């Protein structure tokens, strides 16, 4: 099967210009990124601030076009702008700031805005709105004003707005960065369930390691390049390397790492607290 995302040697350069518009410098934000995402996958792209991960995400729904290299989204080539609308119907994006992407005074109207703009018949808009809001657990708030919602609830409304457009792929571009721990968990739980149940491809862009433990595949970016890739287990086992890329493993993984450094024979691929506690219990039983 054809991958839903197929990037090859992708390069993106931002030019800095002076007041007259002359180019004074070039910043290579993406520097030869090649990766493929299969339909239905849950992918995480990890990277520190300035690593290029958001620039990459913005290519996936044609907000930015490649300077060099090729990118196919759902089989359509990005770059010549002829397919921009179709690409954006295929890939929906949730941004970082919940307050910047809600446009309506009523939750259900906000969710209906997208489908209305792509010409969905009215009766179906209502049906899609209902399904989408139920899916993210926000149906009870459909008549409310969005500005009374918490950040996490707003992001779930934003996800509903994208679901209502029936995309094949949803990207969360640091969508949890401004949320508190509870809001963050609600958003990640929601998007994971949508991935499982609706078979929608999900790409999570983040620097919170806790959010990627459920991913099928993790890419780590630094200075515009993919520098590590693998399953969450494979990535977390390389915690010293992650620190070099300005990232950090979850505390439980860090404790496991410190214990191994002290010569305690724990497995290298511990992912979370439960696995660590199980592993320590096993050692205890053996002794």
């Amino acid at each position, binding site marked *: 099967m054809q991958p839903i995302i197929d990037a090859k040697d992708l390069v993106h350069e931002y030019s800095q210009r002076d007041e007259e518009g002359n180019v004074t410098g070039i910043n290579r934000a993406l520097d030869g990124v090649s990766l493929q995402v299969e339909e239905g996958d849950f992918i995480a792209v990890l990277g520190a601030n300035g690593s290029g991960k958001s620039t990459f995400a913005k290519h996936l729904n044609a907000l930015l076009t490649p300077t060099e290299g090729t990118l196919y989204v759902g089989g359509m080539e990005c770059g010549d702008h002829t397919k921009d609308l179709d690409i954006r119907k295929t890939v929906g994006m949730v941004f970082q700031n919940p307050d910047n992407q809600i446009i309506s005074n009523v939750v259900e109207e906000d969710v209906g805005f997208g489908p209305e703009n792509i010409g969905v018949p009215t009766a179906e808009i209502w049906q899609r709105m209902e399904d989408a809001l139920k899916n993210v657990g926000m149906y009870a708030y459909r008549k409310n004003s969005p500005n009374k919602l918490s950040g996490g609830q707003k992001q779930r409304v934003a996800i509903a707005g994208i679901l209502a457009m029936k995309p094949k792929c949803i990207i969360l571009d*640091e969508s949890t960065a401004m949320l*508190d721990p*509870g809001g963050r968990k609600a958003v990640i739980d929601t998007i994971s369930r949508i991935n499982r149940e609706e078979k929608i491809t999900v790409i999570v862009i983040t620097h919170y390691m806790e959010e990627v433990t459920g991913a099928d595949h993790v890419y780590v970016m630094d200075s515009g390049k993919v520098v590590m890739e693998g399953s969450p287990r494979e990535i977390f086992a390389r915690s010293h390397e992650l620190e070099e890329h300005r990232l950090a493993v979850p505390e439980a993984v860090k*404790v496991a790492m410190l214990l191994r450094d002290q010569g305690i024979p724990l497995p290298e691929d511990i992912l979370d607290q439960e696995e660590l506690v199980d592993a320590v219990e096993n050692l205890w039983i053996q002794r």
Partner: protein
Amino acid sequence: MSIQLENVNYIYGESSGQEKWALKNINLTLHDNEFVGIVGHTGSGKSTLTQLLNGLEKPSSGQILYNGQDIQAEGFSKKELRRKAGLVFQYPEHQLFEVSVIKDVEFGPRNLGLTNLEVEKRSFDALKQVGISDELLDVAPFALSGGQKRRVAIAGVLAMQPEVLILDEPTAGLDPAGRTEILELLQRLHRENNISVILVSHSMDDVARYAERILVMNQGELVLDGAPEKVFRYRKELREIGLDVPQSANILYELRDRGMDVDTNGITPEQAAQNIADYLRRQS
């Protein structure tokens, strides 16, 4: 420096009939040279509390004393209070507005009526303290990375030479290395310059590592107040209000629950690893 809150209440929308108590009967003394962490859910009253501390908001009732003086009293200089109690808002980089880094930092001290030389000296010093190098002084703030912008914003407050630095989630949105840089900076300012730090945070792991005293807020009330090791012993009570102990403490408690006699006194990964290693060695 000391800040004392006596029976402080803060009520929103009193006149509209839809009252909401953001703070309920807060009694609290913040001492000189403390590193205090304030934790609690969104809406627990943390941010309101910080805005009362430097006089941005006025309590609905109760008193706030700065060095024993009532900050609402006639003749008390609010301007002076805001200089001494420097407040760094959430996402302070949104408030950078000048054409260069140095000009932005100079804005505050220049408004204090200091000499040019003094303004420049303070601004250079503040930028040095936050680790912004000389070649960035004339750069536009917008050209900096997220972590750098935030440090410039903190430098702007430091240049006012505050006695206490109050920060509302200064690490929000930063990558792990950027977070560590900011927290280490606060620790250094606290230790080397004797500045009191009041840090509002969502991260139990961060306050466990850096704060000497933790205040736990829930629905406008101050529910726990003490050293981190003590506060995080109230695991059950914290869970009841939807908060958690640091992951490292959780791991130790979890092992204890499974019948292992591990020392549960530990709130950082280093302490947790040490306690577990000690315990396993005792068993063999």
